């Protein structure tokens, strides 16, 4: 996955003069590339559950990479993915906890009760304030929805 972030090799640009990278196309491209990579590793014996996890991880990665650092949730997601990748490759079991200025849930009395659940759902939601959390939720929902649509169309195409 790091290869996608390697911009040193960005010497070849899309020669299409009408190329305008919109979010959906970038997301689709990244996801299909990730799927291709997973398929390439298919001859190795991979259980369906492992492939499921790989594909799910690829889905979230494509979402996070297309959103880039524009949103808190994508940044948090990228950090989480890279941490897990490093852990997996280096077999390290220690996880350094990032120091964040987080007000614990008890000190946020003005929030509704379900805000805590929302924080758990949205990546990086623990350290955000409530109105920022709502903003991030909106964007996260949009990305999730487009990802789901993309995967659904792929499944339909492959199965037909």
């Amino acid at each position, binding site marked *: 996955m790091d290869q996608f972030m390697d911009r040193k090799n960005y010497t070849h640009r899309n020669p299409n003069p009408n190329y305008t990278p919109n979010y959906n196309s970038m997301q689709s491209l990244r996801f299909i*590339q990730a799927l291709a990579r997973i398929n390439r590793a298919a001859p190795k014996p991979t259980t369906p559950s492992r492939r499921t996890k790989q594909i799910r991880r690829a889905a979230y990665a494509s979402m996070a990479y297309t959103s880039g650092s524009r949103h808190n949730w994508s940044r948090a997601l990228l950090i989480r993915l890279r941490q897990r990748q490093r852990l997996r490759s280096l077999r390290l079991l220690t996880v350094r906890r990032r120091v964040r200025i987080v007000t614990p849930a008890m000190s946020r009395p003005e929030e509704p009760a379900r805000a805590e659940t929302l924080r758990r759902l949205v990546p990086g939601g623990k350290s955000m304030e409530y109105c920022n959390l709502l903003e991030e939720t909106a964007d996260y929902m949009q990305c999730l929805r487009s*990802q789901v649509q993309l995967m659904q169309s792929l499944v339909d195409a492959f199965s037909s």
Partner: protein
Amino acid sequence: MNCGESSEMPHCFLNLNWDQSIDPNSQLDSALNSIVSSPAPNLISQPEISPQSHYISTNGTIGTSTGSLTSPPPELNLSMGGGRAGLMPMLPNLVPMNHIDQFQPDSSFTQRAARLSCFDGQNYPGFITQFDLTSIKDKRPETGLLGGGQVTQLLDKAQLGFNNAVNGHDESSVSDPVSGSGQIGLPGPSDIGVRKRKASAKGKGKETQKVSEDKGSDTKRCKSVESNGTQEEGIKPKSEPNGSVSTGTTEKGNGAKSKGKDTGTKQLPEPPKDYIHVRARRGEATDSHSLAERVRREKISQRMKLLQDLVPGCNKVVGKAVMLDEIINYVQSLQRQVEFLSMKLATVNPQLDFNNLPSLLTKDMQQACAPLLNSSFPLDTSGLALPFTNSQQQANPLHFVSSSPSSVDPHNTMHPFFNAITDAASQLGAFWHDDLQNVVQMDIRQNQEEIPVSSQAFNGTIQQAHMKMEL
């Protein structure tokens, strides 16, 4: 409360564009972040009036937030430099000079600012935006070096100019102190407070009376202004006492107000506000805390409305609690769907025949993959080219091309096959997105490594080789 609000200050700027689009304006974000985070000393480029620069700095931020405005830099630099002595420690968030270059001190801009400042009367009758500072730029070259005490005069003149541009709004009352009219005979700091509020053209005649009536609420702000000396609007850290509270609350109110009014914002793409003036409504508490709380509530309600539009089937739901439940359920269902679809893809994918891939990809891929198809690929690269095809129209030649390797003797052409693919990949390199190229190159290298191992296994099984050659 103050500490809590401070972190929202940058987001006030983000909220300026919230109505227009979800996708953040990266340029605006960077500008806004620079506004918030840039230290004050960076702004000092030229020695100039200190209090004036204070106001001008806010103008600078306003200008940067607009982004599209262009203005002669020297004017802003004049004012920015002056803000040091008494103001620098209090203005850590002043915009660096380079951002002010975009500022445009046109009368047309002031008119647009005036229009932008017109309130959506139903929602925020008491809110005012501060646009008058933009007009200060017009006045700056005229006034030259001024003392700190003359800032108010400068502002009055600016206000006057702005008022003239706006054509007789209630700001005339503000300019009155300068012109000598006694409509609002407030002392200097009060003038500043009044001027701040009046800055944007309210367009309501009663505003003048409101100014005099709500002097009580203004006094709190004016007092804070007095207590902090020339310390004024502008983004201030929470550390400041009441003065910062008033301005901070005004900021949030402005943000909410700018969100609230739709017609005004549409005319000016990025309203130049760096602080918000919130006026307490009639019969409401004028406590700064309640003001900030009201601003925050309105922000949250704005976001909830946005979410309501996103979540399907939430039009009937009324109320924040139920809405929040719906949102949580929807996000959870989306995540579960991703999980389920990934499971499905995991089972479906191994049997994937990439010959059918051209029909699978959506039109969105067309842009990214069009150049790949338009070039003439060697036959051997069909397996590689297939994943990047886009449209069904071009599926036929690809099908034809892909069928050719099947007729080739696997043993004789195994290595040339892979070599040809390597060559083709290098040829196609110029057409590929960098990511695609990396993917395919990795693919080729991996296949080359597998050649000696798998060549025996390829006895007549082109399909197997085809699968390997694919993505």
